[in-house]
């Protein structure tokens, strides 16, 4: 019974923590620009992140080690520093987008300009990390994130064309705007396969003291949790295909995004959208800040742990403090949060192999996994999708930048 509850809670928190500004904005752009045609990119991205999350939980449960710890030990300091540099740079842009997303939600709700909300959001996020526990972040914020289910209600209420949606699950070439089509596809992949998600999940497994008896829980949580998370992203795409595409609305701002729920659910839909965007982005802000602090502290051998009081892990606590400040600064410096979202998601996709390939090497090393190393299916799915994302990113980002 205890395990069933663990699985249920894990699935619920995974679903609640899945959507953030990246997946909402990119899925909406996909639906608004290309109808159901890009649904495949959400499914491909979700499959990849489900495999990666399962692997990261299995790695923690079997080896008792964190991923940065093993990366440093297996590949050495210089390679570890190279991986960290790329991941921190890209994730800081994503963090800026998430803080901007929360601020945009408050702007929509109050009418007060976005820039006035950036500092309060950064302070709230920092206070939650400083005073809170891992359980509060993992369960509390993610449970609140279940409000994102409003996108499913909106999509079903809008009466989707299920036949077109089914056809969209099969990858097809674009019928117009090919550069933009591939750029949006790459952004959707980047938003779905965020490396911070599996670093956060793996560190959580260590914080929760998982061992091999948790392998079953891990498989269910990763598979079903991420699967339902991907379902939410598809719902956003479907809503956009129903509401935005026929009206010829391209997603240029957050107000355009709010039409996804208001068109079907009216005023309550607007407030549910504001809550969903604000909570989802705040949750992602917390997860990214913690994931980067974990990445540095574990690789450099510091004391770390969200459940340790800050004075017992001062460098770890300072790291997430500085990271939140930089994320807020990026938005305050004038970066347009929606453009920042697009470019950071595409860069995430383009840089995926940097973090993913060394991780796959670890996942096939018996020294860490014993008899629980990867099978050929997991290796193939993650390898092919991450390299595909990189190739598409390297080609489509310059084309999109040149085109715009």
């Amino acid at each position, binding site marked *: 019974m205890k395990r069933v509850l663990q699985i249920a809670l894990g699935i619920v928190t995974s679903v609640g923590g899945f959507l953030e500004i990246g997946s909402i904005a990119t899925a909406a752009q996909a639906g608004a620009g290309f109808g159901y045609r890009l649904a495949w990119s959400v499914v491909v991205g979700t499959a990849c992140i489900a495999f990666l999350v399962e692997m990261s939980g299995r790695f923690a449960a079997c080896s008792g080690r964190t991923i940065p710890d093993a990366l440093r030990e297996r590949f050495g300091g210089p390679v570890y520093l190279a991986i960290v540099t790329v991941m921190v740079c890209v994730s800081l842009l994503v963090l800026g987008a998430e803080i901007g997303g929360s601020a945009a939600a408050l702007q929509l709700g109050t009418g007060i300009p976005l820039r006035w909300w950036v500092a309060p959001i950064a302070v709230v996020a920092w206070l939650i990390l400083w005073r809170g526990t891992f359980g509060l972040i993992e369960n509390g914020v993610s449970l609140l994130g279940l409000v994102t289910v409003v996108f499913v209600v909106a999509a079903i209420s809008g009466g989707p064309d299920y036949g077109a949606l089914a056809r969209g699950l099969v990858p097809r070439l674009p019928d117009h705007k090919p550069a933009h089509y591939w750029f949006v596809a790459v952004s959707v992949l980047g938003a779905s396969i965020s490396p911070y998600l599996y670093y956060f999940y793996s560190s959580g497994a260590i914080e929760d003291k998982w061992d091999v008896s948790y392998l079953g829980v891990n498989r269910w949580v990763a598979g079903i949790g991420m699967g339902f998370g991907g379902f939410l992203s598809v719902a956003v795409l479907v809503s956009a295909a129903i509401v935005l595409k026929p009206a010829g609305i391209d997603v240029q701002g957050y107000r355009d995004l709010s039409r996804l729920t208001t068109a079907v659910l009216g005023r309550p839909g607007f407030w549910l959208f504001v809550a969903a965007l604000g909570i989802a982005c705040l949750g992602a802000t917390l997860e990214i800040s913690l994931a980067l602090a974990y990445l540095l502290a574990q690789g450099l*051998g510091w*004391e770390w742990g969200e459940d340790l009081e800050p004075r017992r892990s*001062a460098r770890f*606590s300072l790291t997430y403090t500085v990271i939140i400040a930089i994320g807020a600064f990026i938005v305050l410096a004038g970066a347009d949060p929606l453009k920042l979202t697009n470019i950071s998601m595409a860069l995430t996709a383009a840089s995926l192999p940097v973090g993913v390939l060394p991780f796959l090497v670890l996942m096939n090393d018996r020294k860490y996994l014993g008899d629980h190393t990867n099978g050929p299916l997991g290796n193939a799915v993650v390898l092919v999708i991450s390299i595909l994302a990189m190739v598409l990113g390297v080609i489509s980002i310059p084309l999109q930048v040149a085109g715009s």
Partner: protein
Amino acid sequence: MISRPVHLVADVLDEQLVDATHRNAGRVDGVIAAVRAGHPPRVVAIEVGAVTLAARVSRHLAAWVARVDRRLTGRRAPVRIPWDALRYRDRYLQFDADVDATPINALEQWLRVRVIDRGRR
């Protein structure tokens, strides 16, 4: 003291260090060997610190990190732990002292005392 044969790169370099109370105390960022005429080199110490790690990437990066490290911690050289003071405990390398009593945790201590404790008052 480590009595069994170890592979310096696979078993020592980049390994997690823990102190006498099993608290994380950084990683082995460098290994120091004494070169002796007519004899094989002998490992005498390990080094812990960002400057040593940066030096494995580039000299310029190490010089820049050294300037920042000096400003933050007042440290003028990486911390060295004698080889004889190390032993394996589980999968970690352990030294027999409190990490807070060593310069390894200079920045951690400074943050604790000057920033966190002062902020609470």
